[in-house]
């Protein structure tokens, strides 16, 4: 699966620090061996994410300087995290799809459809009769179902992901409008708001959910065969096929996974807004993809980083928080946001190049 971009310098670059001392061939090799393992991993990962950490730190600095206590305030931090939580969960799922060589434009629409479905009158009645978790389950199932359709179209139908999910974008939002009759559906299920909008150890439940999804995502990507295979499918689908991985099934599962994440995000959004609506999740696709790619996951697949994605999400959220704290005009915000995206990416690239092997 092809090239990242025609322009990103793919040509091997000379190593940065030329040791002028002549080293024996074997000596170089044993050096490398000493370097390997944990230390090397830390170095590489730090290198890859260092730019993001610095960008985030700079942003926070700006926040503190301009916003003072209001920014550093614990309530404000929680506000930022709460805001990051919903799009964060979607972005974690998106990391898998992108690392696996795909893309999904329909996440926002799936969030909308899930939110509408799980707040539909019939669902609410069911939930009231039994338990509020019925709603959550509905949302996740609807999301996973949409993901399944995407996955089937892409993996077995051979439709390119961009188009398949574009179609899903239109259809799912349309369906959400049909179901909700374009009305905002208010949640009225006992126990739901209490359970979802409370705090746990001083941290909002939503933030916990995000943290758990991120942690699970990290383990799944880095410590399981599923994650390994995702990177293999994204990095070289033909090699993965020849290695006996059923690329189609795996690809399908990636979209189902992302769909389920959208379902989780939907229920989080429902608890935040106490409503389901066909307008929920507008433009999530761009936000999520931007966070994932800024985080360092390769858009061409084959490399993914959950830590980077989380940092990417936080950068965007902190950004809009700072803008609001400083009462900036919306238009100026846009301009600055564009600039910051570019600067963050350039910074990250320079640093990654410097530290990676």
């Amino acid at each position, binding site marked *: 699966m092809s090239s990242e971009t025609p322009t990103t310098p793919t040509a*091997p670059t*000379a190593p940065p*620090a030329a040791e002028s001392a002549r080293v024996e061939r074997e000596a170089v090799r044993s050096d490398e061996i000493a370097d390997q393992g944990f230390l090397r991993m830390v170095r590489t990962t730090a290198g890859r994410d260092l730019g993001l950490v610095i960008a985030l730190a700079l942003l926070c600095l700006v926040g503190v300087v301009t916003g003072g206590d209001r920014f550093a305030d614990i309530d404000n931090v929680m506000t930022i995290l709460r805001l990051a939580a919903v799009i964060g969960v979607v972005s974690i799922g998106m990391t898998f799809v992108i690392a696996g060589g795909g893309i999904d434009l329909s996440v926002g629409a799936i969030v909308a459809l899930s939110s509408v479905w799980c707040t539909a009158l019939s669902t609410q009645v069911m939930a009231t009769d039994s338990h509020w978790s019925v709603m959550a389950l509905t949302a996740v199932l609807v999301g996973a179902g949409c993901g399944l359709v995407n996955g089937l179209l892409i993996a077995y139908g051979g439709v390119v992901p961009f188009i398949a999910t574009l179609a899903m974008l239109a259809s799912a939002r349309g369906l959400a409008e049909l179901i909700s009759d374009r009305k905002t559906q208010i949640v009225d299920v006992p126990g739901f708001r209490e359970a979802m909008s409370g705090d746990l150890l001083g941290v909002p439940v939503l933030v916990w959910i995000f943290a758990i999804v991120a942690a699970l995502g990290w383990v799944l990507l880095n410590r399981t065969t599923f994650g*390994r295979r995702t990177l293999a499918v994204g990095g070289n689908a*033909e090699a993965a096929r020849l290695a*006996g991985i059923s690329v189609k099934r795996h690809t399908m599962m990636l979209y189902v996974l992302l769909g389920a994440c959208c379902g989780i995000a939907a229920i989080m959004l429902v608890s935040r807004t106490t409503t389901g609506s066909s307008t929920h999740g507008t433009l999530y696709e761009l936000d999520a993809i931007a966070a994932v790619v800024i985080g360092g996951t390769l858009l061409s697949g084959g490399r993914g980083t959950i830590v980077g994605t989380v940092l990417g999400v936080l950068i965007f959220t902190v950004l809009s928080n700072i803008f609001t704290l400083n009462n900036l005009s919306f238009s100026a915000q846009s301009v600055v946001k564009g600039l910051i995206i570019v600067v963050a990416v350039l910074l990250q690239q320079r640093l990654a190049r410097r530290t990676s092997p």
Partner: protein
Amino acid sequence: MTEQSGAQPQGAEPGELLRMRGIVKRFPGVLALSGVDLDVRAGEVHCLLGQNGAGKSTLIKVLSAAYQPEEGEIAWAGEPVRLATPVAAMRLGISTIYQELDLVPGLTVTENVFLGRELSRGGFTRTSEATGRVRDILRRLGHSEVDPSALVGDLSPAAQQIVSMARALSHDTRLLILDEPSAVLDQEEVRNLFRVIRDLTAEGVAIVYISHRLEEIREIGDRITVLKDGRTVATGLPAQDTPTAELIKLMTGRAIEYVFPPRPEGDRSAADPVLEVRELAGEGRFRDVTFDVRAGEIVGLAGLVGSGRSEILETVYGARRASAGTVSVAGRKLRKGSVRAAVAAGVGLAPEERKSQALLLDQAVYRNITVSSLGRFARGGFLDDSAERARAEELSGSLDVRPTGVERPVRTLSGGNQQKVVLARWLLRECKVLLLDEPTRGVDVGARSEIYKLIRRLADDGVAVVVVSSEVEEVLGLADRVLVVREGRVVHEGPATEIDESGVLDLVMEGEVA
């Protein structure tokens, strides 16, 4: 043991592991295999010979279930089998090292070795255990210097080949298929490979070995099957003592002299150098590289894999930035780090990895040939498509690119024919200086001698040629002058006639003639 192809007695012979009969594989527009038979016995090294495009790679892809054949039967240890998926083939104990490296660049060595069969407990990978096992396998392969946790994308092609090998050996293998494994290896590494192969055959593992280098087949092979145009034309030939002429005749259908073209008479040292390289250095890779190439001269660069020859060529070409030194063509210094400047000055490069560095795989043959000379077919930026095609047709005809038809996407050509397309590109360009990195890698004997002749003819027409090759014999036979590179430094320079193979090898290994 010579059984010419034909009716075989039914039923398995003693020791017979694999029997393929009447395999037919069709690609859109091409009949790649039109009835191939193959028998392999346990413990033997069975060599598959054939010209570029004869169908060798296709056959073994059918065997490893990467492709499904349209017709034909496969019997494994006497039992008929249907290989529906690569996993089914793997389960039988068939391991394959493909001609095109089939690794995932973004994963580590360990991860690639166990890809699809990860060591895991409940879905969680057991990284350290896997790493340990990979380290053992690598040691057994004699390459303990390869770091199991390095990313495969960062490794040299030779090291990647070793990873593929480790992958094949990481599970119980009864039949190991090697599709031109030696193409990216130098002589020492080939020797190492042969040692591993002998160990395996001693354990009863069968090997299917594909190579265009007859001397290797003589050394390691037991029996030979020859393919021509998608058919088996001979099978069970003894590898050691079938005459070369007969093999070539079987492969090509004609007699070809497998010799290097004669060097022209007369002294060229009076001519002005066309290419002057002065104290060229590439950060950390090579330095102090100084040499001249005169018009009509062929200079060979010999050295071990990883000694920096490719980098020297790429730096001369401007594809990498030199940290010091200059390159001049016809007396004019080239702008540093600019391929365009080099091409404009009349330099051409046939890079080492043609798939990733040279070819537009999904585009037509003619477009690949003309891409560097588009200006020639254009007036005011508008292309004369038919002139373009006609010229490409002419060139591919003269290089005998098969199958014919310049509209065909390059992806569908066999490896050797793809190489010819790359050469055709620079022939068309009519360069002053031609840099060839492993020009005959994966090229069959017939085409090989044609390419040698071609290179010589170019030189005779006044082109300055630099050839990098891992086959010392090739460097010595083809070049007028030889540079031996060791760890990024030129350790010897002199006429090819004044040094022999063992001399070069000594230089390469020790840095001095023993």
